[in-house]
């Protein structure tokens, strides 16, 4: 579904945001990418949506090497995924309904389908009654639910969320995570970059920990990794799991 092969990204400032990283996310998984600010998790997310290009390595989304696709095809890639940001990024001049419908408009969906699908999704996120309201009339949690609705309205195979609860209070943050979990249960692969420790601990999903641009831990159903001063994780046995996810192509070659 999503695969990083020896990906490195060094910004022009000389900062190595991602350092020879490899990881594999299966279809239908719910994965947290955790780490301190500036560890490289947002860069990972940006590379999946092709906002940032790696210096070396390959990134596969739905089997396509997105490091090789042209700029012209970026919209097609983004249409295959839903994206949720910390700052919601809703179009201020459009109502809730129009914001969600916009994602369908860009793929030139049939207006009849839009009329049917948008209310369904708004109902799913609990905002059907606010369809005609503008974003600035909504609370932060509601705005993020609109962003989630927009992200899933085209039934994407993968949903990318970069710090989706960063601007929300704990209760609302939990609601959003529950919503993402519901979406995941419907079959959508969900990748969430966050440093919301409580939520990660509670959700008991796969957790990939990043430090200095490298994957330092990958736990199948773990909590947030507490880092000791020397950068060693509390459960070193997790590294064995890392190799399983890091080199899936070698497993395939071996017929595993």
């Amino acid at each position, binding site marked *: 579904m999503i695969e990083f092969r020896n990906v490195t990204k060094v910004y022009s400032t000389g900062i190595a945001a991602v350092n020879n990283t490899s990881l594999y996310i299966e279809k239908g998984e719910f994965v947290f990418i955790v780490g301190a600010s500036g560890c490289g998790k947002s860069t990972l997310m940006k590379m999946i*949506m092709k*906002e940032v290009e790696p210096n070396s390595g390959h990134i596969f989304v739905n089997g396509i090497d997105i490091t090789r696709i042209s*700029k012209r095809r*970026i*919209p*097609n*890639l*983004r*249409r295959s995924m839903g*994206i949720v*940001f910390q700052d919601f*990024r*809703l*179009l*201020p*001049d459009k109502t809730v309904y129009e914001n969600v419908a*916009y*994602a369908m*408009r*860009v*793929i*030139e969906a*049939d*207006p009849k389908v839009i009329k049917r699908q948008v209310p369904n999704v708004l109902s799913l996120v609990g905002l059907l009654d606010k369809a005609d309201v503008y974003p600035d009339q909504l609370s932060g949690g509601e705005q993020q639910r609109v962003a989630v609705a*927009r992200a899933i309205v085209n039934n994407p195979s993968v949903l990318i969320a970069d710090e989706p609860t960063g601007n929300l209070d704990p209760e609302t943050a939990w609601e959003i995570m529950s919503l993402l979990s519901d979406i995941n249960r419907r079959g959508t692969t969900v990748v969430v970059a966050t440093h919301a420790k409580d939520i990660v601990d509670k959700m008991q999903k796969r957790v990939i920990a990043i430090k200095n641009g490298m994957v330092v831990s990958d736990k199948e159903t773990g909590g947030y990794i507490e880092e000791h001063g020397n950068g060693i994780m509390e459960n070193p046995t997790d590294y064995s799991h890392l190799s399983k996810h890091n080199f899936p192509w070698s497993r395939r070659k071996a017929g595993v």
Partner: protein
Amino acid sequence: MSFNTMGYLIKDSFHGMRKDIKNTLISLGTMFATMLLIAVAYLVYVNENKLIDDTKDRSSNIVAYVDVNMSDEDAKKVGYEIENIVGVTSNTYRDKDYAINLAKSMNPIMVEGFSDEVLKTIYPAYFVITFDDVSLVDVIVNSISKQNGIEEITVNKYAAEKARDAEIYKAIAIVAVIYIVEFSIFLMMNTTKLMMFSKRKEISIMKYVGAKNNFIRAPFAIQGVFTGLVAVGLTMLLINFAYPAFIRSMTTLENGFSFISFDVLYQNLLIILVSIGIFIGMVGSTASMKRYLDV
């Protein structure tokens, strides 16, 4: 792009203008100023051209008088030589009989009592030489004066100088039009750049949702074209009243020049303004958003 999508984009562009009325009015104001400048430049240019043509028609010529003793045959040979001088556009030979008849018709008292034989020794045959390029007058006169049998040359200097001045004014008008159009496009581009800067966040959101560049550009292009057309309409309306009023005020000065009437000009002016309005509106609004599309 389907009709549904086109309809949506048109609707969306009008919705956008209504929601962002401040920027829409700024854009319209700039476009109106641009169109007005272009219209004024055009009116100056066409009237300047007419002035040049009028001046040329009136009397831009050289008259070269032939020695009275020269035969018609010899004079015509000289005429061929004159026609070959660079810058000469036409050369008409007027023989002695023509000159005498002209004198009789214009000033009969003067020639009264003289026989034609005597008059033939007074009124020489002459050439009427015309030219287009006023700057070549001195060279042409010099070349004619070197021809055998040419006794005297007169140049309608007033007309030539006026025509030369008109050529200078025309050159100034052309340069002014180029600068005005350039300045107008610059003005429009900067206004739209500011608009796009304020919309950059929305454009990036559209990109993240998977919108293709043309889908994002279309509403802005439609807005630009619409603004351009409204500005053209306002300009034509204003010129329709202001230009005839200007002509009337200039006519009272009795300067002898008649301006081209608006009825003759409006069709060409409309075509020019609509073309430029659509071009600036579309290109101005879409070109300045290019950098924000690279997300």
